[in-house]
């Protein structure tokens, strides 16, 4: 017991530490690829499958974590813009590795009107399929995908992890799809 093991101090997420993670190369699935299917918890006792949304455009917003300052802004922003997404008949899904109870508290605090999915077990499995997982840190990239009605990726974008990508790219992609 005499040996002392250095203990890594816990990450202090309150100061936005996760936003300061270095940005590695991001290799997202690109336009034209078939969107990999997944079934994830949307509440503690309900799941949602990507396949269930076939026939409508789907916006997948992978993000690193609930509660960190930038994420709150990004999901909060999408919540405000949600009516504009709906004009295109699009569904919006937020995805992070947080558990469903965490998502529930976060969604309630931010009054979110769209579902948050838990890529929780096996951790990050859906994000990995999309090339949107940061294995070193164990969180999702801040990555956006637009999936068309037939399940093909129409557009994808990986944002620097500290930068809220906004919604202009999403709206442009939805508009292009509707043409």
């Amino acid at each position, binding site marked *: 017991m005499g040996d002392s093991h250095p203990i890594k101090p816990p990450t202090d997420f309150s100061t936005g530490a996760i936003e300061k993670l270095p940005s590695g190369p991001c290799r997202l699935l690109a336009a034209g690829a078939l969107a990999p299917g997944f079934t994830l918890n949307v509440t503690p006792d309900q799941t949602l499958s990507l396949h269930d949304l076939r026939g409508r455009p789907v916006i997948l917003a992978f993000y690193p974590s609930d509660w960190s300052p930038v994420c709150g*802004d*990004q999901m*909060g*922003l999408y919540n*405000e813009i949600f009516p*504009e997404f709906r004009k295109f008949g699009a569904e919006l899904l937020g995805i992070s590795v947080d558990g469903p109870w965490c998502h529930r508290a976060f969604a309630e605090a931010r009054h979110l*009107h769209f579902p948050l999915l838990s890529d929780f077990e096996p951790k990050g499995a859906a994000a990995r399929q999309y090339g949107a997982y940061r294995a070193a840190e164990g969180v999702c990239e801040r990555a956006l995908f637009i999936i068309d009605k037939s399940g093909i990726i129409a557009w994808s974008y990986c944002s620097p992890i500290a930068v*809220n990508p*906004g919604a*202009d790219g999403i709206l442009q992609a939805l508009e292009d799809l509707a043409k």
Partner: protein
Amino acid sequence: MAVLKVPVTSEDHAQGPHSAEVTLVEYGDYECPHCGRAYPIVQRVQKHFENGLRFVFRNFPLGEMHPHAEAAAETAEFAAAHGRFWEMHDLLFENQQRLSDQLLLGLAQELELSATTLRQALEDGEFKTRVRGDFSGGVRSGVNGTPTFFINGRRHDGPFDFESLAAAIEAGRRWR
């Protein structure tokens, strides 16, 4: 890079000369604490650049997060219809901590505008279209939170303390 998709026109609320070298556009929310923090900084920046800067304010109320933001934005537009936009803009930020429906009516009275007319305008949503228009244009331009600044049409992604904003405006002179 995100660029301003909706050009500044005479419909905008602007301070400073039309011919100014740099135009600073802010998309803001009267109930957002960060915008509240930016308010005196923008004033300092305006003083610093004097006639070299034109400042434009557009509405970007985050109504889901801030329950009074939409009504506050509509109140500013109501004041604008009576030629008192900037006075109301300033009053709203200076009273940000205690925004309420009652306060909005009180602020109108402070500017000698009719509280009854304002109440009716809010109920009828008379200025909703204008506020929504600003919001939609902002979304299209890549507004990703509040406040978002554009300097000569380019989104300013850096911090907005006085030194950073002033340096970015200085650099913006070259982007005309």
